[in-house]
């Protein structure tokens, strides 16, 4: 298939940037979206132009690097997928496709379609962990009985890959689905309860410092999340936060 692409080009973080139109030809419907961009870049390099910078790593849907807003949706029109799992069969010959970086004040564009998501790292560093001595005599995790339902829910929350699609798609650029998932995966487990209060307060504070917006419960994040992270995680974070607020010293 032949396609018209409108891609955000931005030389560096300081550049103003603009949408640039390209034509790309001979695209197989079996290609992933990133492979289509590879073909475009080959064409650009062969014609002496600067290739389009875009993030990618695993290309199997688990690294969460491919921060693309495609035709008005995070990771494109398919559901439950990252951009590398989006196939060209979702498009038609002759289509015009808009490709933009994830947009949020907390996710500044570094170049073209590459955004800086280190805000997520800083939120994680503020409390998204448990403190365990790894001196060689670490207790076997299975020594603590955990209800299957809790373990399953914690695992579901832990499947968040931190791709930022929730922020990109939220009209408020809110990171609450991400933070909710990270808070939940520990809140549900006995190992996480020790630092639960500090965790939720510190992570929420850091989230606010980074400049993310407020959640207004539109539910768009849940729909666009490639890992199907549920809104129940945001509600759990709200509960954890409220509980920590009224019981902290």
């Amino acid at each position, binding site marked *: 298939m032949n396609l018209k692409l409108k891609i955000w080009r931005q030389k560096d973080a300081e550049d103003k940037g603009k949408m640039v139109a390209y034509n790309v030809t001979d695209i197989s419907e079996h290609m992933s979206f990133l492979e289509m961009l590879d073909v475009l870049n080959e064409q650009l390099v062969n014609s002496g132009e600067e290739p389009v910078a875009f993030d990618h790593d695993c290309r199997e849907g688990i690294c969460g690097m491919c921060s693309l807003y495609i035709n008005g949706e995070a990771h494109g029109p398919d559901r439950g997928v990252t951009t590398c799992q989006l196939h060209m069969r979702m498009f038609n010959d002759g289509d015009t496709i808009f490709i933009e970086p994830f*947009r949020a004040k907390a996710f500044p564009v570094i170049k073209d379609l590459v955004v800086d998501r280190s805000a997520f790292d800083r939120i994680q560093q503020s409390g998204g962990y448990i403190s365990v001595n790894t001196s060689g005599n670490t207790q076997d995790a299975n020594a603590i009985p955990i209800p299957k339902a809790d373990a399953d829910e914690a695992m579901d929350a832990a499947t968040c890959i931190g791709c930022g699609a929730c922020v990109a798609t939220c009209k408020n650029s809110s990171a609450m689905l991400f933070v909710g998932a990270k808070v939940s995966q520990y809140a549900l487990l006995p190992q996480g309860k020790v630092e639960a209060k500090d965790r939720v307060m510190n992570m929420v504070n850091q989230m606010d410092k980074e400049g993310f917006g407020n959640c207004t419960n539109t539910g768009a994040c849940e729909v666009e999340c490639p890992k199907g992270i549920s809104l129940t995680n945001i509600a759990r974070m709200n509960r954890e936060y409220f509980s920590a607020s009224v019981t902290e010293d």
Partner: protein
Amino acid sequence: MSNRKGTTSVGRKILMALSGLFLIVFLLQHCTINFLSVVAPDTFNEVSQFMGTNPLIQYALQPVLAFGVFFHLIMGIYLERKNRNARPIKYAMDKPATNSSWMSRNMIITGIMVMLFLAVHFYDFWLPELNTKFLKGDMSGLNAAGEYRYMEEMAHKFSNAGRVILYVLSFIFLSLHLLHGFQSAFQSVGFNHNKYTPTIKRLGNLYAIVVPAVFIFIALFHYFNQHA
């Protein structure tokens, strides 16, 4: 734990939800009392007199209600401004309708429309009441003929077609606001449960349709009652 709890994003949304739930409860009692004007006008007069003169309601609950309305408005505008600033560069192509409802994305529009209506509503009913009761000092609730005046005053307001149309449109905006707001408030205070949330959503939709519909019915009833 450096930040004050009410000033974080989660703290604000909990406060926004609590003020919204408070207004939802108030609206239900307001709707119930107003409906008495259709089915039992005398009772409506008596309840109106009670509500308008009871010290607990006038001096304790009324200021709390006024604060609740004001807080919900100011916090809503503040959060909207903050949220807009969180995305300085907008998308060239955006399809929000593919993943969220119009109501959930436009709470600020429906909310401001409701607040503009409230300004008219206060001018119509609340300010005249304050004037009669607290400036003129007439707490009797009676008209010149010695009968309760509430029913006739209400009917008089709804004799004007323009005002009735304004009220009907405003309650449609209120309905749109509640269609998202009701269930959203529960989510914000942390209540999301696989078993109960579907019921809360259904209850919210029912409330968001029935309560504004009753208000619309009351306005139309009094209009047509006088123009029949």
